[in-house]
């Protein structure tokens, strides 16, 4: 038995990023369009409370609420927290306070940034007002932040029909999260062996099946695989499909053959691309071998070995 080598811990950056397209519905549409027009709209519940920011459904009764009310642009801090080190995407790049602000005429508070010289300049109960962003598009960030503003509370709210020219119906919300991906012990061993153009499977100590690529556990026995078993390099195409649509994020010309390949000595098939043969001549049972390219982490593709096709009965259990 070959003992498992101590794996070097692999890691690589992984960015999960997408510009989500969000439709708003009528209440949120009115609120965000209002911000673009420097107008702040709340929504009135059946019992007369004005919720700001306006939600579509009453948190207490669950009833739909659409009765819009224009509230003031000045308000009172109900609680706050001093953020000395702003993070990516937050409203201000210099130290600021997060604050819940109850705008005049509203009964609930809105979360946003409060620009203040330092924590000593912030307290619960202080008066603030909206500082509008220079360029407004109909988004919560049309409020650049709040700023200190001495004034008397003016609790009056005025009904508003929520109608604006060219209303904002949707927003694009780009979101990017950065991760550092590590594949773990078993896959690190597998990837390390591939660097020497060797495909190493791992044998389950219980059922004795050889897993390629190994994923850390024999999934049917629920125990770690460790014993290293070199498999291939040749194998058999067990099944495949011909891919005719080009995926945006893939640099592979279509059509191409995506195949399940049972490498000799492995107890299940791995996936690869078939080349070196016209796509419409690929068949189940075709014998193939890997083709490596300079610097490639994986075989670029598999090509026919020229051996006779494998008999169906020899691989049907691997389908």
């Amino acid at each position, binding site marked *: 038995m070959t003992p498992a080598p101590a794996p070097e811990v692999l890691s690589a950056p992984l960015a999960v990023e997408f510009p989500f397209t969000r439709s708003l519905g009528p209440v949120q549409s009115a609120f965000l369009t209002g911000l673009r027009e420097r107008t702040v709209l709340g929504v009135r519940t059946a019992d007369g409370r004005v919720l*700001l920011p306006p939600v579509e459904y009453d948190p207490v009764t669950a009833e739909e609420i659409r009765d819009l009310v224009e509230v003031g642009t000045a308000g009172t801090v109900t609680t706050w927290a001093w953020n*000395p080190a702003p993070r990516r995407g937050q409203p201000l790049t210099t130290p600021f306070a997060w604050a819940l602000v109850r705008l005049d005429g509203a009964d609930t508070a809105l979360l946003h940034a409060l620009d203040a010289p330092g924590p000593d300049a912030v307290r619960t109960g202080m008066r603030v007002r909206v500082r509008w962003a220079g360029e407004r598009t109909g988004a*919560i960030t049309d409020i650049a932040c709040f700023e200190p503003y001495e004034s008397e509370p003016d609790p009056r709210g005025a009904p508003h029909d929520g109608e604006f020219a060219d209303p904002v119906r949707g927003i694009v919300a780009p*979101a990017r*999260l950065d991760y550092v991906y*590590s594949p773990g012990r*078993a896959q690190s061993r597998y990837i390390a062996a591939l660097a020497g153009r060797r495909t190493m499977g791992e044998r389950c100590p219980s059922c004795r099946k050889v897993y390629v690529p190994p994923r850390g*556990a024999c999934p049917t026995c629920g125990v770690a695989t460790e014993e290293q078993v070199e498999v291939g390099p040749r194998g058999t195409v067990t099944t495949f499909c011909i891919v005719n649509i080009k995926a945006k994020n893939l640099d592979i010309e279509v059509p191409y053959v995506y195949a399940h390949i049972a490498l000799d000595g492995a107890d299940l098939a791995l996936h690869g691309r078939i080349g070196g043969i016209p796509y419409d001549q690929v068949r189940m049972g075709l014998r193939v071998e890997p083709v490596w390219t300079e610097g490639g982490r994986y075989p670029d593709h598999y090509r026919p070995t020229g051996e006779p096709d494998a008999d169906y009965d020899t691989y049907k259990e691997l389908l």
Partner: protein
Amino acid sequence: MNPRRVAVVAFAQTRHRRRSAELSEVEMLMPVLHEVLAAVGLRTGEIDFTCSGSADYLAGRAFSFTMALDGVGAWPPISESHVETDGAWALYEAWVKLLTGEADTALVYSYGKSSPGQLRDVLTRQLDPYYLAPLWPDSVSLAALQAQALIDEGATDERALAGVAARSRCAAEHNPHAQLAGSAAPDALLDDPYLVRPLRRHDCPPIGDGAAAVVLAAEDTARRLCPRPAWIRGIDHRIEPHGLGVRDLTRSPSTRLAARHAGLFDDDAPPVDTAELHAPFTSQEVILRRELRLDDDVRVNPSGGALAANPMMAAGLIRLGEAAARIHRGESHRAVAHATSGPCLQHNLVAVLEGEA
């Protein structure tokens, strides 16, 4: 008709760590599954129902739980489910399954690796996607808003919060699974700078990776598997509105309500001696103690709680497991365990556990 009695009969967890880059999720989880099953002498095939909790966003991998299933050995196929939240809710789902009588045993597990991402940023994706998420308000800042409201109310102060931190981390010195153990005295802690005022680093949970598992069993099966089962006398969970400005952040009505439905305040209920509270931030312990009406006689978080180790999606299940383990060991007769989910204690679960009366 009396419902079936269901108990926690075994509990296991990882030694929680800041990072575990050398292990995939299944590699981290599997030893815990082996340990918890060994404790009751069962194999996967002898478990009637399996339920897990995890969240794709933590490590940035969709369907992460499908790979974690490799560690269970789900062959022949098993009766299995998954919740996209803390494993405490997986335990709840399993408890319901056992109550139906369709299962006598259940394996519950959960895991989370926070180390691959920036957890404070990741959790902003839990917020309302129109008004809140675009501002990227991080989890520490939201907890700080809640803490300040509590201080303004006069319910606590920074010195008292440091006391919670010191007590929790000193308790964790007896917990071999803790990520953080030991603490300077509260007054010394106050010399540290703020992370997000009014919270200092000691007020916040460590960020880390970990997994946990429990086995549930009903009636005679529980007695057979465990000399002193931790019977679930009641368990319930409740959610609050999402908007932070709609809620009174100094209160947790959902915790109070869940506790009532779990039987914590029943007239005939003897008092609890132990509480395992899922309070990732010191200020949240203050809120939870008040809502659960815990007096000073109750040992709160003898494990060190989430301030000692807070593997996301597992930390709530661990509270239930720690409370049960104390009953198993005879160190508690009656305990309350709590788990939370969402920003500023939005969603709360409460369970009352007790040893054989």
